[in-house]
């Protein structure tokens, strides 16, 4: 079998698209985190702009709604001095029967330089990256259950900020892992950065056994899952999964896997608690924990802007 080249890297191994954390060399990943560190200070300045993407057009293509993620990408692009266009594709072209690739071809003809893509189907950004003009860069802002690589990177930035070193950590990822693109990105990033113990915690319907193939320890018991953890990443439980064949009820999920102060006491005393947002208080996390001293949920949001600036400026500087 031919090993097809990783489509997000050019022949020099430089990042030209960000499609997935999987297959990203550790050096590239670390470089993005370092770059994000330099942008963090930009966000504290009075004039929050650098001219790195001046004259470039960034198109936010959201085939699936997400005001929050789109906003953070928009802020990041604007702080890099790019022109930003937000396209909510759900409401425009696909309802008129235009195909995904026709939409991309049309937007490319408007001289887009970068597409930030969110889509409900796993792998959609790969299709776009394969078919867009060679000078156009693609950032995956979440595809189906597959990946949400900028979230993964900002989570790594957050962990590095608070814990400094990855090589001794125990990280627990809790909740609906099977449907979570955030979990997949986090797991790949954590393994790439050398975290020795990654636990995937949840019931068998949401945490299937073959996740072990991704290098995690599968735990169905919450106490076992978070005992001694340095980092606890809680995932959002989607409304449509709160009752049905996956779970009987949100209440029962909270009882077994919701992060309460009592359960958090099993983790290390200096453990940090993370969540990609938006939070379901009283479903996956208690308010006392979300707002408590271990929570770094709001710093995650702040770091997210800097990380997305780092991603966009990095790929824009590399040629296909």
């Amino acid at each position: 079998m031919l090993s097809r080249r990783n489509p997000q890297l050019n022949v020099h191994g430089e990042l030209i698209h960000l499609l997935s954390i999987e297959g990203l060399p550790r050096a590239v990943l670390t470089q993005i985190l370092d770059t994000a560190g330099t942008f963090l200070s930009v966000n504290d300045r009075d004039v929050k702009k650098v001219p790195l993407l001046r004259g470039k057009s960034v198109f936010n293509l959201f085939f699936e709604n997400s005001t929050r993620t789109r906003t953070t990408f928009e802020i990041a692009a604007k702080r890099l001095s790019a022109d930003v266009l937000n396209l909510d594709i759900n409401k425009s072209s696909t309802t008129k029967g235009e195909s995904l690739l026709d939409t991309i071809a049309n937007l490319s003809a408007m001289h887009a330089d970068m597409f930030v893509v969110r889509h409900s189907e796993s792998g959609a950004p790969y299709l776009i990256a394969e078919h867009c003009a060679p000078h156009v860069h693609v950032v995956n802002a979440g595809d189906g259950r597959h990946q949400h690589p900028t979230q993964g990177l900002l989570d790594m930035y957050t962990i590095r900020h608070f814990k400094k070193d990855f090589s001794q950590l125990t990280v627990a990822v809790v909740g609906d892992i099977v449907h979570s693109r955030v979990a997949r990105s986090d797991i790949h990033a954590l393994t790439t950065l050398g975290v020795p113990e990654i636990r995937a915690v949840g019931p068998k319907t949401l945490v299937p056994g073959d996740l072990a193939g991704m290098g995690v320890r599968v735990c169905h018991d919450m106490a076992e899952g978070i005992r001694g953890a340095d980092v606890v990443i809680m995932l959002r439980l989607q409304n449509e999964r709160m009752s049905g064949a996956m779970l009987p009820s949100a209440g029962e999920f909270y009882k077994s896997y919701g992060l309460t102060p009592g359960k958090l006491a099993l983790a290390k005393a200096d453990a940090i608690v993370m969540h990609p947002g938006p939070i379901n208080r009283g479903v996956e996390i208690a308010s006392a924990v979300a707002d408590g001293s271990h929570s770094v949920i709001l710093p995650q949001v702040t770091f997210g802007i800097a990380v997305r600036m780092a991603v966009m400026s990095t790929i824009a500087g590399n040629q296909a």
Partner: protein
Amino acid sequence: MKILISNGRVVDPASGRDETADVMIASGRIVGIGGGGDFNAERVIDASGLVVAPGLVDLAARLREPGQEHSGMLESELAAAAAGGVTSLVCLPDTDPVLDEPGLVEMLKFRARKLSRCRLFPLGALTRKLEGRSLTEMAELTEAGCVGFSQVDVALTDTQVLLRALQYASTFGHAVWLRPQDAWLGTGVAAQGALATRLGLAGVPVAAETIALQTIFELVRATKARVHICRLSSAAGVALLRAAKAEGLPVTADVSINSLHLTDIDIGYFNADMRLTPPLRQAADRDALRAALADGTIDALVSDHNPVDEDMKNLPFGEAEPGATGLELLLSLALRWGADAGLPLGTALARVTRDPVRVLGDAIGSLASSAGRLVEGGVADVCVFDPRAEWALTPEQLVSQGRHTPFTFSSTGMMLPGRVHATLVAGTIAYELA
């Protein structure tokens, strides 16, 4: 027309013949195999260095007519069959409209006969509109030319209807062709496993196949109906089939060229050419399928030809239409499998000639005794190919209207052995390599 195929290596799996000889053809039939010195042929095909084999018999090909002409047409797909050395094929009833009316079947048969590229044996729908509620008129459909009855990929969820269908079909000796897939567990887009988990693709567990097989075998036990299992995909499925055959149940089975050669790893970075039904499974499954085809537990190798329109493949993996073009690859992939498994040429060819004809049995009437074989007095359905030719497939080489296949050199790096030089159907040249 009198045709002489001279000096080829004549390989006939049915009789075990494997020798250099001339094949003499007149009035659509083989009139002699041996020395053709005094045969006064109007046309001579020099087969020196080539293999002269029976025309291939493919038990699963969608032609996409009627109703899906944007993906394939009778003319284009039967030309593809001829280019692939396929002289008889079984087409599936999930067209639009569904093949549940004798008139539609007669129309297809008539048009195929006019094109005279390949013999066409339609499967009729087992239930009206494939809706799984009421039986089709099996006697009428059989008279119109159907060789069996199938639900194709529409799982029959109502076991009461399935039981009745098997009882009714067995009353009249009709074969029922079923692809084993549980309707609910079978809703994913890739085989359940590490790859699907990693890529975030909804998985189809092996249990989707084994549960359906258990149900089918239990009902065959009760009804003694003749059932052909279509497109087996898993090692666990092979084990169940092997046990069912050992028990003496009247079942046969096939595997597709895709499941025989590929695994889910080939999906790579969401390559929609690998979006197939049944989904590609893991290496252990592929190895079990290869072994079962070698020992005859699986009776036949099929192309599972399903041309798909460009627009329906240029979509995210999960939204892309399943299917791949295969008619023109059946010979090469049979040869490739045979060579990999260290089998004699005759054994590899048997799975695409003699054995599929055995699966069809009496349903094809008098052809049962001469299709898929080279026999004096039998129909002259012949495939002449160069066994030493190796080729790298590109989509542009395909005759089929569908240009999507997993076996392009650029996606698998696989060289394909065997090149068809000529295909004869009923003594008429249906294809000749330019």
